[in-house]
C-alpha cells in the first residue's frame, strides 16, 4: 500500500509556467463556464492534490453557480455535482473561459 502512495507522489499538476496571466476560477461571474487548465503556485501540494481528487482536474468544465451572501464561499458546478470553495482555493485554479 505504501508502494501505491509512493507511485502517487510522482504526480505533477502544476500549470505550465507559460508566463501568460491566466484567469482563475475566482474571476468567473454567475453562470459563466470555463475549463480547468491547471493549478497556480499559490497553494500547497496537498491542497492541489485534494482539488484534483475532488474532480477539478485539467480539462474538466466548471460553472460558477452562486456566491454566499457574505461573498465567500462560492458554489461551482463541476461535472455532475456542486462544490463550495473559498476564494483562497479558487484563485489558485487557472481556467480558460468557454462560451
Amino acid at each position: 500500500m505504501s508502494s501505491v502512495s509512493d507511485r502517487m507522489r510522482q504526480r505533477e499538476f502544476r500549470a505550465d509556467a507559460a508566463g501568460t496571466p491566466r484567469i482563475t476560477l475566482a474571476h468567473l461571474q454567475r453562470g459563466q463556464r470555463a475549463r480547468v487548465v491547471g493549478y497556480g503556485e499559490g497553494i500547497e501540494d496537498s491542497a492541489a492534490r485534494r482539488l484534483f481528487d475532488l474532480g477539478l482536474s485539467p480539462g474538466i468544465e466548471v460553472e460558477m453557480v452562486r456566491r454566499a451572501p457574505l461573498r465567500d464561499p462560492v458554489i461551482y458546478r463541476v461535472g455532475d455535482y456542486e462544490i463550495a470553495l473559498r476564494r483562497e482555493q479558487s484563485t489558485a485554479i487557472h481556467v480558460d473561459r468557454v462560451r
Partner: protein
Amino acid sequence: MSPQHDHCGAGGGALSTANVGLTRFAVVGSPNSGKTTLFNALTGLHAKTGNYPGVTVARYEGRTRLGEHGTVVVEDLPGTYSLDPISPDEQIVVDVLDTDHQNTRVDVPDAMLVTLNATTLRRSLGLLAQLQQTGLPICVVLTFTDDLSRRGGRLDIPAFTRALGVPVVTVVAGHRDGLADLRHVMARFDSWTSPVVPPPTDPAEVSAWVDSVLESSGYRLPAVDTRTHRIDSVVLHPVLGTAIFLLTMFVFFQTIFTVAAPLQDSVETFFGWLGGVVADHVHIGWLSAFLSQAVIGGVGSVLVFVPQIALLFLLIALLEGTGYLARAAFLMDRVMARAGLEGRAFVALLSSFACAIPGIMATRSLPSARDRLATMMGAPLMTCSARLPVYILLVSLLLPSDARFGLFNARGVVMFALYFFGALSAMAAAAVFKKLTARSGPMLPFYMEMPPYQVPRLKTVAAEVWTAASAFLRKVTSIILATTMVLWVLLNLPLRGEAEMAAAGVDTTDDAAVAAYVIDHSYAASVGRAVEPVFEPLGFDWRINIGILSSLAAREVFVATLGQVAAAENPEEPAQALREMTVQDGPQAGRTLFDAPTIAALLVFFMYALQCMSTVAVLRRESGSWKWPAIAFSYMFALAWAMAWLAKTVVGALV
C-alpha cells in the same frame, strides 16, 4: 450530524475481541457516497464505535449475518477522496488497506465493499482505480441509482460490470432487495473476479481510463438537479436565504424554551406524583427520604430534559436529512472563518445547544483534524440544556419576575446575555485552540459538497433521534443517579444521636432543625468546608461548594443539591430558605449568601466551568487520549474562576 452508534471500544487490531478471527469487510468510499447508510443498513445500528489508536479519527465496526454463511465483521472506514493521504482520516484508510503489512496498528480486511455514487461516477471511479492497486478483493456497491434515473442519467450496469472487472451490486437506500443480493455476493468473496489488468496509476491515464469505462457503459450524466437548483435559488439567496436561515435559528431556539415546556411540565408532574406515592406508602423514614430525594429527585431532574433534547435532536436530524445543514454551513462559513474554523463547525456548535455530547460527536463531519479538535475544545462553552435549571434558579433569586431592563423583561435579558456570551466564548476558545495546534499538520483546503435536497427518510430520522436520545439517557442517568445517591448519603451521614443534638441546643422534636443539624455536620459539609479557601474569594460558602463539587458530575445536580440543603431547613418553602440563607462563619458571617455579587459569580462560573463527566468521557473518546479532556477541564476551571471573580467584583461595585 447526530450520533448514530452505540458507544464502546478500545483501539487496536479489532475494535472488539469478539470480532477477532471472523472475516473482515471494509466499506470504503468518498464522503456522500452512501457509505455510512450502507454500513448502518448492514450492521443495523449495533455497531461499536471507538477511535483508531492515537488519532482523532472515529472508528466504526459492526457485524452482519450472511445467511447460512455465518457472521462477518464490517468496518466503516473514514470517507476518503483519494489514497494519497492529506489528513489523518485518509492516512487511516491507507494504513488499514496496507497489504504490504507495514502498519501493525490495525487489521487488514479480507475484502472491500467500495461505495460509488452513481451520480458522481466520473470522480468516484478515480478512487476505485486506486483501490484496485491494493490487490484486495473488491465488490462495487452502486448507490443513488434512483437519483440517477430521476435526473435523466443512464448507466448500463452489466456493461459497467464487464468494464470494471469486479462484481457490482446496486443498492438503493430503503429497499431491502439490494441488501439481500449484496449479502449473497459477500458470502462468496473469495471467488470475486478482479480486473484482468489493473487500471493505470498515473492521474492523466486514470482520467482516460475512467472516460473509456463510462463510454462503454453508456453513462449519461444526470441533468442538473432542477429541484435542488430551484430550492437553492431561494434558500441561498443573499436576502431571502439569510432570512430563512435566521428564521430557522429562531425556530430552533424557540423549541428549547417554548415547545418543550408542556412536555417538561408533564414529566415534572409525573415525578411529583411519584414522590407523593412514595411518601404515602413507604413508612421507613430514611428509605422514604432516600427514594424521594436521591432517586426520584435525581432521575426526575434528568428525565425532565428528555423532551427538550429529543426535540432538538429531531430538528437537527430533519435539517440534516433534507440537506439543509450543508446550506447552513455554507451561509455561516465566512463568520466561522473569522474564528479560524469553517461552516460545518457551526453545525457542531449548534448541536451543542442541546448538549455538548452530540455537538462534540458532530465534529466528525469536519475533514480537518485540527478543526475537529478546536471545535471540541470550544463546544462545552455553548450553553447546554443542563445549565438551564441552574440559570433559572439563580436568575429567579437575583431578579423579581417583573423587573424590567428598559423595554425588556430583566430576566429574559440576563438569560439572553448568558447564551450570547456562552456562544461568543465558545468561538473564541475554538479560535485560540486552532492557533495553538498550528504545528500539528498542514492546513486542509476548505471544500464542501452541496448534496441534492432529499425528503428525509422518516425511519432513518427516527432511528437517529432514538439512538441519540437513548445514549444520552443511559449515560447521563447513570452518572446523575449515582451522584445524587452518593450525595444524599454524604449529606445524611454520620447519623447523630439525640443526646448529642440536645447538647448542641437543637430541639429534637423539630424535624427541620434536626435535619439542618445533620446536614451542617455531615461528611459532605466537611468536604465543602475543606475547599473553602478556593471559593471564598468568589463569595461561596460550604453549601454552594458542595453544590459545585457535585455538579462536576453533571450540572443538573447543583439544583438537586441546593434543593436538599434548602429543604432540610425549610421543607415547605425551599426557595424561601435559599433567599434567607446567610453565611455562617468566617469574615463574611451574617451576609446574605445569595446576594447579587455572589449570584453573578455563580452564574458566570457555570457559564465557563466544564462540569459534566459525560462530556469529559466523550472528549476522551473523540480525541483519542486523556490529554485533551484534561486540558479542557483545566482551562475551563481556571477561566470560570477568574471570570466569576471578575463578575463578583464588577457587580459588587455596581450594586
